[in-house]
Every structure is written in structure tokens, then in C-alpha cells.
């Protein structure tokens, strides 16, 4: 994993990892998954370490998942949530960073509305930094846990055909998943209206399809992104009805499929928009599996960054 300033190890983006980093994290997540099945769900690996969850944007799942992961490794956890209302974002983050330095913590898990905030933080704090989602940039642990879930279910990653459907441009989950899937040798097709595709798509080595019907029957994994309803009023977005018509996993489409793909969703789902309610019930188990995998994967990341010296 990438060395940051001052020799601290960070996890900022999938794009800066290599294939071996990704695969070794997935392997060790498998060992950590076992810990959560014991009656005593705790190991002393990070005893004495302190981890700060610095969430400058609302989040329940990711924060809880990181908190549980840290606690199952016996680390101490401090939660720091802040609204960015009065101060400009840069200033408020820097002030917080100073506080964190003074507290002498070992790692900061940061979620921030601005892309690049975790990277900036590495200049200000003297500890490891883990990106828990920054703006429209990346959400590396989500992508890693998605890959983990896929590999556990389908037994491999290389050569798999994955379609990612939805608002790709605004999605850090999509961006991290694209990088991660390409690194491990999966084929990726993006399915979205032209207006919701990222501008740097040429550099991503992926194909594009115009509607969900073009990929159903082809893909092994269908990754549905959450449609952020507040974006529907933006000019780049078609109406909800049009979206469902062209990109929604409707009951009609699902029941016609002979070869049903593994369906994934970062949650929470908009039933009736990107996925019909009955289909959502069918595929619910994979999606709750993603949540359980999240704790194991984040344990692997924390242990990799904080367990052991790296001299």
C-alpha cells in the first residue's frame, strides 16, 4: 500500500494500488471474516491503537462498519462528526487535523464531500489516513468489499463480465469499482445515459452500453448504483420514469432472464427506480452479504495499515 508523507501507510484510492495489493487484502479479509463468526468476536491485534472516524458527511453504514472493524481488532475508536456549514471546508478540515495530531492517534478514517480531502489530510496529520469516500472521487473500501463479495459468491474475478448501471459520473463507488475490477482482470461495461458518464472515460478501459437490455444475458454481475433523487431535477438527468424504462431492473426484465446475474447494490435501494421491489427481495441476500463483508474487509485494511512495523 502506498507510503504517505512521514512514512505512514495510507489507503486513499484504488487507482494507486496494484493488483497484488488488492488480492492480498481480499485474501486476508477471508481470515478476518472468521473472527466475526466466533462467540468472542474480538482479537487483540490492534490493542493500544487509537483510530478516529472523521465523518464530514452523513454516513451510517460505512461509519458503523469501520467502527465495528476497529473494535473487533481491539483498537480504541473516537467518532468525530462535523457539519461543514459555517466554515469553508478546507479550513474546518485543517483545524480538525490539528486537533487529531494533538490527540496522538494512529489512524484517521475520513469521509468528506470534497474530492482529494483525504490526500490533503496526509500533509497535516502524523498518522495513517484511510479514505471512506471523498466527493465524487473514490470509495476504496466499498470497492474492495464488493470484489470480496463477488469472489466469495462466484469463486473468481478474472474474466468476469461486470455491468455497472446508473449515475456513474457522480459515483465514487463506481469509480473505485471500475479501477478495482480492471486491475483484477474483470471486463467492465458501463450502462448510463451519455450525460451521466464520466468525462475521463477513455482512460478507464471500459465499454459503454446504451440501455440495461444490452447487458442483461451477457453479464455475470449486475452492479446497480443508487439513484440520488436530489439529482433528478438536474438537467443531465432524464425523468425517473424514463430512467426506469431504460436502465431499471424491472420485474419484467428479471423474470425473462434464463441466466440470472449476481445483482449488487451499495444500498440503500430505491425500490421502483433502479430496481423493482420484487427483484430487490430476490437479491436481498447478496446485498446484506455485502454489509457483512464490509466489516471483515475493513478489518483487513486496518490490520494491514496499522499491524506490524513497515520498516
Amino acid at each position: 500500500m502506498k507510503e504517505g508523507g512521514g512514512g505512514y501507510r495510507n489507503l486513499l484510492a484504488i487507482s494507486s494500488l496494484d493488483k497484488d495489493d488488492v488480492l492480498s487484502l481480499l485474501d486476508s479479509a477471508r481470515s478476518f471474516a472468521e473472527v466475526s463468526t466466533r462467540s468472542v468476536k474480538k482479537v487483540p491485534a490492534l490493542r493500544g491503537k487509537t483510530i478516529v472516524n472523521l465523518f464530514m458527511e452523513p454516513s451510517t453504514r460505512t461509519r458503523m462498519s469501520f467502527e465495528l472493524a476497529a473494535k473487533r481488532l481491539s483498537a480504541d475508536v473516537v467518532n468525530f462528526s462535523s457539519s461543514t456549514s459555517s466554515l469553508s471546508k478546507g479550513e474546518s478540515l485543517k483545524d480538525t487535523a490539528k486537533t487529531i495530531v494533538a490527540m496522538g492517534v494512529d489512524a484517521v478514517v475520513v469521509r468528506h464531500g470534497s474530492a482529494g480531502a483525504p490526500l490533503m489530510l496526509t500533509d497535516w496529520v502524523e498518522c495513517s489516513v484511510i479514505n471512506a469516500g471523498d466527493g465524487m472521487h473514490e470509495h476504496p473500501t466499498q470497492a474492495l468489499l464488493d470484489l470480496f463479495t463477488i469472489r466469495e459468491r462466484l469463486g473468481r474475478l478474472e474474466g468476469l463480465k461486470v455491468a455497472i448501471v446508473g449515475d456513474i459520473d457522480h459515483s465514487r463507488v463506481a469509480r473505485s469499482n471500475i479501477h478495482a475490477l480492471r486491475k483484477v482482470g474483470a471486463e467492465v461495461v458501463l450502462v448510463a445515459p451519455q450525460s451521466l458518464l464520466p468525462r475521463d472515460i477513455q482512460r478507464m478501459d471500459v465499454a459503454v452500453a446504451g440501455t440495461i437490455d444490452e447487458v442483461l444475458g451477457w453479464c455475470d454481475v449486475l452492479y446497480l448504483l443508487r439513484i440520488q433523487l436530489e439529482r433528478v431535477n438536474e438537467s443531465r438527468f432524464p425523468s425517473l420514469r424514463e430512467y426506469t424504462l431504460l436502465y431499471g431492473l424491472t420485474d419484467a426484465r428479471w423474470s425473462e432472464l434464463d441466466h440470472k446475474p449476481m445483482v449488487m447494490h451499495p444500498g440503500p435501494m430505491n425500490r421502483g427506480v433502479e430496481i423493482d421491489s420484487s427483484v430487490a427481495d430476490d437479491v436481498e441476500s447478496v446485498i446484506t452479504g455485502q454489509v457483512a463483508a464490509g466489516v471483515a474487509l475493513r478489518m483487513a485494511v486496518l490490520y494491514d495499515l496499522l499491524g506490524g512495523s513497515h520498516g
Partner: protein
Amino acid sequence: MEFEARAQLLDADDIARVIRRVAHEILERNKGRDDIALVGVRTRGVFLARRLARTIEEIEGGSVYVGELDVSLYRDDVAIRRASNVGVTQIDFDVNDKKVVIVDDVLFTGRTTRAAMDAIMDFGRPAVIQLAVLIDRGHREVPIRADYVGKNLPTSGNEKVRVSLTEIDETDMVEVGEERER
């Protein structure tokens, strides 16, 4: 670092004899195979535990529990050594009231055994915990001793013992030698 062997200590036949003897000792000490659970410490301890289990089953019939333990997360030296890949721990039986025998290839400082005991206690409360090792090379740093020893081997601190088992290596043997910079 590369291992340079100076002498072979045990060959395949010797190891087979050790397994047989220790299997008998375990049965003798515990008055039969009831409630015995062999827990191998990754990596080679797991293979030794499986061999012991097979031998015990041949002697007494029935079956004994076998588990696998990775002690990386329980080590006391996480802060000073490089984090290695964590292997899977698999203990599919209830350890409560079992006679747990920890199986490892080499007993050296005793710290691995200490970590293994802590890990087992997190799974429950065994009736007893015993320790079986193929080689005891001395230099203990904590008050731990083995209940069953394949071979005692007084070594100097800079010597290394290498155990090879056919499950992952080419042959069955134990060698003593030194580690050298390549």
C-alpha cells in the same frame, strides 16, 4: 535470507516414528481418545495435527477433532515485526471441556504457544490444554513447556531449525543450519 543446512536431524522414517510415539503418549496421558481435540498452529503444525489425528484413529478407532489456528492476531510482537498475511483459523467444534492439544513444529521462545493459548480461550474453556511439538530447541522466553516432545535439540541462538513436511515441501525431514544473507 536463505537457509543453509548443516546437518539433517530427522528423516522421514524418524518423523513417522515420532508421530506414532506421540500419538500413543497422548492416548496414555488422557486415558483414551474421548474429548481429545488436536489444534495445529499454522502452517506445519496443522499437518502434524492431522497426522497425529489419523494415527490416533488407527490405534483407537473413532475420530478425534482437528482444528487449525493462525496466531498472527494474538502475537505480542505485532508492533515490531512486519504484518504478514493472516491465515484462516478453523475450529469447527465446541472447545468447552475438551482436552485440547496444541500441535506445533518447533518450540522456541514459547511466545507462539502463549498466543495460541489466548486464541483457544477465546473459543471457550477447555478442560485442559496440552502442547505437542516435533522439535524443542530451547531458549524459552516465557514459562511454557511441552507435554509431548518429538526430539529435544539444544541449539545456539543464531542457529535455525527447518522442518519440511510432504504436505507442502518435497520431503519429510528436519534440518539444522544457519540463515545467511543472499
